[in-house]
């Protein structure tokens, strides 16, 4: 498999320049270059962590991980735009763990202001905030930040490389660099040089100023580019982590305590060890690993190990957990991130409409089960291959587990067969490294069974919400939402960085407090439940919870007001955030909203502004003899600058399918402290025949030029409420609980 390491060894030049500070467009001062993590080859002076040039073409080192969201293609397009290379010359690899690849986009998510109120013209963080992700080792993929974080960084990498190449050519020709131009991987002047010819010399040059291209001249950014991974993914030749193949490799699987966080009291491996092909059963603290000559035998053997599990420290079953969550309403709110007007006075006037909603824990269930490959070398160094969203944290966790220096850990991030937030935790990498440490100089590929993947996940929290509202003259005058849930942020960051950051937990209330509804009295509270079920970030995080609550409740208010639910939203939004209102009008027109209402059909609308991108969705459902069918869906989104329309369309569609799958079937439940759902029949997604057709429109009105909203997550939050609202429209039954297959007979 190609990796940054072999590439840098085979070829010899890494070049370009790094840049700090700067405004949105114009000239950039080249300043201190961050430590370059790419392995230099004798005789070269690597300068730039993002661009490698050799005779075969240009390799872009992507600082974000590819999980299917298309980010590697978008990041490469940004480099190519400035570097003047043909698309066919570009390849992309994921970079090693390094500060240089910090995600500047994360600072965008560190504010407690509703996104739509931020009026920033661009995504250039101020210097103090910009340091934060570095401090937190946030070489992280998540929060739909990849394109935002890379927008400046990757173009500067491309432009810096271009200017260095021009400078090298200028030196040879004895002219000023400005007299030269670049095209299709060549510097053109009195004489033409290929980039490869100039690369070694260019690597020694640091251009003083780098001007970025005027957006009106862009050839790649804003266009639907052929994805760089498409051929490999259509021919079975993409190497996912689970496909790692190394000489003499053994195959392992794990069985960890299903009572999460509990100890292992005892185990007896005898029945496993007699299976032909089994090498070893290894104790791993709160579980075991089996190593064998093939993965299937390891999985069969793991099931035969007789294990006594100690208890977890959370309640026994889902009902008891919900009681715990409910109790949080009686505690002081953790957050009140919105408190417009005077909710209490307005609601005190009476005629209050109230509703309570409940949603379950959810698993990520990416198609590629969790896995990692590790190889402990004779000198004690360890090499690990593991698809992950946080390389620095993963590398350091491996080092800590093996009690070795981080410098002795080489971590590769192969592309992932889906992630959806579920590959942030370093657990598989750490377990693989520990197994490998028990079998030195033997490469070990650890593959989780689907059952282990589903029962050892870090779940989207279950939550309960209580909303109250008031109408006057057919208009909503007040809304008070309260969400109670255990905190995914506290749980995940506690595990990942050892502490939960102080202050209000935005994730518990995002999608609820921060929506562009111009209610005169609007309050949103978050209550944190005391529950130690291991939690994580699930595609769109808190928005997936609160969009269901808020958008169901807005729908209830609209019906109580005898108003059209789409028009009702539009009226609340028009004066607050025009791009969002435009999206509602757009889905209205795309779907022919007024004509959708007819016998045997239902229609639902929902909206959510998340990760810098407002999204409105309309869904049509039909009563059929085989159950209720999802027939057609329309999505209008506005990410601001649309970097790659084809990828955005795919992400919006996929995000909605992901949300609909969870809304219909998704529930992780507990019995005897163990997750009940173990494989796909228990946790079914939409399928070919149950997926609606889609029409997607991408608008570019949001923010001022240079605003780049996320696209990987924002398609998900409106899905569940759009469906619940459509089902209400069809049946007159209001579902206040997910999954919806508990209330409705949906086609399967």
């Amino acid at each position, binding site marked *: 498999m190609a990796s940054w390491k072999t590439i840098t060894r085979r070829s010899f030049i890494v070049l370009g320049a790094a840049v700090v500070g700067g405004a949105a467009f114009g000239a950039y001062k080249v300043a201190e270059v961050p430590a370059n993590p790419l392995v230099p080859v004798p005789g070269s002076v690597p300068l730039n962590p993002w661009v490698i040039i050799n005779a075969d073409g240009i390799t872009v080192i992507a600082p974000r991980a590819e999980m299917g969201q298309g980010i590697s293609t978008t990041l490469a397009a940004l480099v190519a735009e400035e570097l003047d290379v043909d698309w066919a010359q570009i390849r992309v690899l994921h970079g090693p763990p390094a500060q240089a690849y910090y995600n500047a986009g994360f600072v965008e998510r560190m504010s407690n202001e509703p996104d739509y109120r931020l009026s920033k013209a661009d995504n250039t963080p101020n210097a103090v905030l910009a340091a934060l992700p570095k401090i937190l080792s946030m070489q992280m993929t998540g929060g739909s930040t990849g394109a935002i974080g890379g927008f400046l960084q990757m173009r500067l990498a491309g432009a810096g490389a271009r200017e260095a190449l021009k400078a090298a050519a200028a030196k040879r020709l004895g002219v000023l660099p400005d007299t030269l131009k670049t095209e299709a991987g060549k510097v053109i002047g009195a004489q033409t040089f290929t980039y490869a010819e100039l690369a070694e010399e260019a690597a020694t040059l640091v251009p003083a100023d780098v001007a970025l291209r005027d957006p009106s001249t862009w050839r790649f950014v804003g266009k639907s580019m*052929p994805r760089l991974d498409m051929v490999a993914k*259509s021919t079975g030749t993409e*190497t996912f982590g689970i496909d790692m193949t190394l000489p003499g490799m053994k195959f392992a699987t794990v069985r960890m305590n299903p009572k999460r966080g509990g100890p292992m009291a005892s185990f007896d491996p005898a029945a496993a060890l007699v299976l032909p092909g089994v090498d070893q059963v290894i104790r791993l603290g709160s579980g075991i690993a089996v190593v064998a*000559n093939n993965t299937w035998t390891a999985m069969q053997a793991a099931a035969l190990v007789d294990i006594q599990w100690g208890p977890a420290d959370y309640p026994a079953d889902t009902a008891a957990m919900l009681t715990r969550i409910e109790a949080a309403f009686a505690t002081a709110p953790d957050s009140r991130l919105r408190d417009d007007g005077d909710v209490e006075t307005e609601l005190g006037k009476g005629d209050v409409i109230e509703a309570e909603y409940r949603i379950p824990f959810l698993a990520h269930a990416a*198609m*590629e089960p969790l896995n990692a490959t590790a190889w402990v070398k004779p000198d004690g160094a360890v090499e690990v291959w593991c698809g992950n969203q946080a390389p620095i944290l993963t590398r350091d966790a491996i080092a800590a587990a093996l009690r070795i220096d981080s410098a002795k850990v080489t971590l590769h991030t192969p592309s992932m*067969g889906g992630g959806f937030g579920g590959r942030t935790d370093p657990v598989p990498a750490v377990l693989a490294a520990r197994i490998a440490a028990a079998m030195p100089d033997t490469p070990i590929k650890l593959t989780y069974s689907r059952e282990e993947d589903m029962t050892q996940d870090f779940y989207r929290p279950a939550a309960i919400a209580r909303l109250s509202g008031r109408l006057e003259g057919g208009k909503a005058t007040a809304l008070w939402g309260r969400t109670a849930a255990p905190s995914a942020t506290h749980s995940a960051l506690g595990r990942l960085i050892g502490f939960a950051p102080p202050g209000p937990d935005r994730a518990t209330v995002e999608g609820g407090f921060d929506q562009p509804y111009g209610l005169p009295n609007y309050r949103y509270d978050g209550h944190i439940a005391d529950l130690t079920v291991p939690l994580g970030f699930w595609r769109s995080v808190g928005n997936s919870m609160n969009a269901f609550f808020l958008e169901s409740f807005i729908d209830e208010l609209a019906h109580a007001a005898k108003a059209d639910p789409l028009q009702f939203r539009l009226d609340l939004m028009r004066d607050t955030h025009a791009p969002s209102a435009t999206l509602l009008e757009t889905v209205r027109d795309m779907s022919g909203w007024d004509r959708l209402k007819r016998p045997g059909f239902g229609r639902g609308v929902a909206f959510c502004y998340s990760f810098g991108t407002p999204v409105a969705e309309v869904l049509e459902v039909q009563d059929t003899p085989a159950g209720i069918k999802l027939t057609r869906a329309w999505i209008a989104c506005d990410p601001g600058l649309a970097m790659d329309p084809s990828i955005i369309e795919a992400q919006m569609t*996929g995000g909605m399918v992901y949300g609909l799958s969870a809304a219909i079937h998704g529930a992780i439940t507990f019995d005897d402290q163990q997750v009940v759902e173990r494989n796909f029949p228990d946790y079914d*997604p939409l399928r070919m025949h149950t997926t609606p057709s889609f029409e997607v429109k991408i608008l570019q009105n949001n923010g001022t030029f240079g605003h780049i909203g996320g696209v990987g997550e924002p398609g998900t939050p409106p899905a569940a409420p759009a469906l619940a609202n459509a089902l209400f429209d069809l049946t007159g039954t209001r579902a206040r609980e997910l999954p919806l297959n508990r209330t409705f007979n949906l086609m399967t």
Partner: protein
Amino acid sequence: MSYSLSINGATRQIDLPGDVPLLWALRDGLALTGTKFGCGIAACGACTVLIDGQAVRSCQIPISDANGEITTIEGLGQPGALAPLQQAWVTHQVAQCGYCQSGQIMQAAALLSATPDPTDQDIDDAMQGNLCRCGTYPRIRAAIHDAAQMMKAG
């Protein structure tokens, strides 16, 4: 015990117990990793291969029973020589994470060999056992229709 399998036109020896499923013989024994593991219980379709032209879940076939001509994604076409289905997948930019796509393509290959010009209903019937967590179904449908036309045109 050693088994002899006919894979992508070549005879391959595999030295694993007879109850090991074909999926793992391909992946772990022969490093043919294009065929994917998703569930292990015939519930996802990621492991789909062709045996004598029929789409089967390779996670369910012990190597001792894997008689017949086996075709995996590697045998359908290669990056430099795409099969029409794979070409259609590229044209329609189907894959997101791509993990399910080997299975989707092999399932679609079986569909098109039995039903050269499938209706949407045919596609629903043939493809509903193949999960895609990224939700690429609409593009898969479009690509299958397109490949059918390409193959008809020869």
